[in-house]
């Protein structure tokens, strides 16, 4: 199964659509990866995790990144997040939820020529921002969007 998965991922890379998806060890068994960046996805602090993964936490806010996420999550266990980055030369899209115990959630490496687009589901224990960090042309850009996780009930 791991082989098959690896093949699929290889295939998708060759097609230049979507590269490697890593999600806190959920999407992919850690054994598959030669170098699982435990110091990034295991970090309790977002800045530290981002620096460990991307080599820097020095980033600029960008209006070219759009995060689509619900204002209030229907289910905190599966919050749909879509990140679209329209700048040139997008190399990777990283998603973080700073209020999660391990804030770094996923990072997508994109092959050259790929659209700056990543869509996934993330788990959020409580309300907070969802942060996207886009690496493009060797530089880091960021944007955020608030998502509320509520206990629900009491609707009019």
């Amino acid at each position, binding site marked *: 199964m791991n082989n098959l998965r690896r093949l699929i991922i290889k295939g998708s890379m060759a097609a230049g659509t979507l590269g490697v998806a890593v999600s806190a060890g959920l999407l992919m068994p850690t054994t598959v990866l030669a170098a699982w960046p435990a110091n990034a996805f295991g970090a309790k602090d977002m800045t530290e995790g981002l620096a460990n993964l991307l080599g820097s936490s020095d980033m600029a806010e960008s209006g070219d990144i759009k995060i689509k996420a*619900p*204002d*209030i*999550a*229907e*289910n905190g266990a599966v919050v749909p997040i879509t990140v679209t980055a329209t700048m040139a030369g997008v190399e990777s899209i990283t998603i973080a939820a700073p209020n999660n115990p391990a804030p770094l959630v996923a990072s997508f490496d994109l092959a050259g020529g790929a659209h700056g687009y990543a869509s996934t589901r993330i788990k959020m224990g409580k*309300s907070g921002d969802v942060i996207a960090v886009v690496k493009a042309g060797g530089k880091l850009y960021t944007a955020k969007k608030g998502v*509320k996780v*509520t*206990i*629900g*009930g*009491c*609707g*009019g």
Partner: protein
Amino acid sequence: MTLSRREFLHLMGMAGAAGLLPGSLRASSQRPADLYEIPRFGNVCLMHMTDCHAQLNPVYFREPNVNLGVGAALGKAPHLVGNAFLKHFGVAPGSQQAHAFSYLDYDVAAKTYGRVGGFAHLASLVKRLRAERGDGNSLLLDGGDTWQGSGTAYWTRGKDMVEACNMLGVDIMTGHWEFTYQDREVIENIGEFKGEFIAQNVKVTEEALFDYKFSDFDGFDEDAGTAFKPYTLRTINGVRVAVIGQAFPYTPIANPQRFIPDWTFGIQDERMQAMVDRVRANEKPDLVVVLSHNGMDVDLKMAAQVTGIDVIFGGHTHDGMPAPTLVENSSGKTLVTNAGSNGKFLGVMDLDVRNGKLQGYQYRLVPIFSNLLPADPAMQAYIDQVRSPFKAQLEEPLALAEETLYRRGNFNGTFDQVICDALNKVNDAQISLSPGFRWGTTVIPGQTITMENVMDQTCITYPETYRREMSGADIKAILEDVGDNLFNPDPYFQQGGDMVRVGGLDYVCDPNQSFGKRISEMTLDDGTRIEASKKYMVAGWATVGSQSPGRPIWDVVADYLRDQKQVKITKLNTPKLVGMKGNPGLEDYPAA
């Protein structure tokens, strides 16, 4: 003492002579023959009802004395109550309109003017307006929350209302509480509904699309992934009218997701913009309206962000607004209405649409006084027939009301207090929690509280009660969470309900604070401070996450009422408010 129609009209005449009538009526050259004489205007008439909550027969319904606006909403419609409301909308104090729109002198006025709403009375008005506007020149829109809220709707799984709406001739509807039946029942009810059910903001989840169980349903669009038809186009008197549906965006959060696991909602204002643009480009409509269950604050924000909508006909927040709010956005203006609840009003908008554009409008939110409008015989016969199997249950007397029992308002109403007290007493709990719904009819002093009144306040499809220990921190977390749903300054984070009702618990609430900081000084009724780490026995109902183990809430409340025999509230657990002095959304509040 209830006035007859003739006595009432006589009284109206006197009020007119005494200068008590609202400006719009006084200004007309001749005294109106009756309240329901609404002059024709323009060429298209859109009638709008919303949030009747399955009240087939006339009811009492007290408007709130607490409807706080915070942030940008401070002092603006719909966050006005009582005298501030009347002043803002130019409604004469003491008039029958003032009774319809406000809580002022409620006990006396309710006895004078009688019950409001009722489908048979509504049907008479709708028929009359249809006839006056001419065949095919009007549409009847229903904003939803129509198939839930009464004992008979609960026992027939919404079907009594589907047929009543068919008889009334509802042309187009959207929904919210309609989705609180099982999904197959929702699909079945919509199948039996003769009008069109529309919602642009309900999609089938990506997981469910693989093997969708309702793939044969008419409104489902596999390519778009939408579960229901998003919009419809009607030609009214030669005018092309596009109506886009907006269901309650937070249905799976405010109500159980487990009944409708395959559907995902959300405000989806980008999708709304795309929809408006596409409809305008492809269908070339003369008028674009949205039939919305967003709630008024969300509608006002949406109207400021989405361009190209002429009118949003709104509901959900149960705001009976005599006039629309005009909202400017980057490319034009949008009218936003809200048409109250419990069958009390019919919104009537006459529009002048020419040369592919809205040129002018006339709007009335017409109160349905059952003493002034005759009951439509066919509708009344249907209502009597659909109620007959449940008559004995509904009419069971439980206790006598010694004061007005109501719910609507940001904090505990008196009927909520009855429910909370019942939970504490019957379940032997220290603290009780009850949802801040905005529906639930009113019982006036001297009236016998029947099982029907209890059902009107409680009948949901997840009525089970619980009794469990919670820490002080847990209780505070619940209050903060619900408080943020009500007082978050960004309307898109509001769910449109009121604050959770509490029994046995007092607290201080500062609505202007941010999340987690609004609630303080929590104490038990005897003044003992609530401690974060200490455990308290809590009773409640209406859990959305999973089914609770206890008896349905109406049985608990009925037990309590039978035991009490007479009901007078000794203590109302409403919070002490901070920072709300002078807020026009607050009147006659003991602890401001």
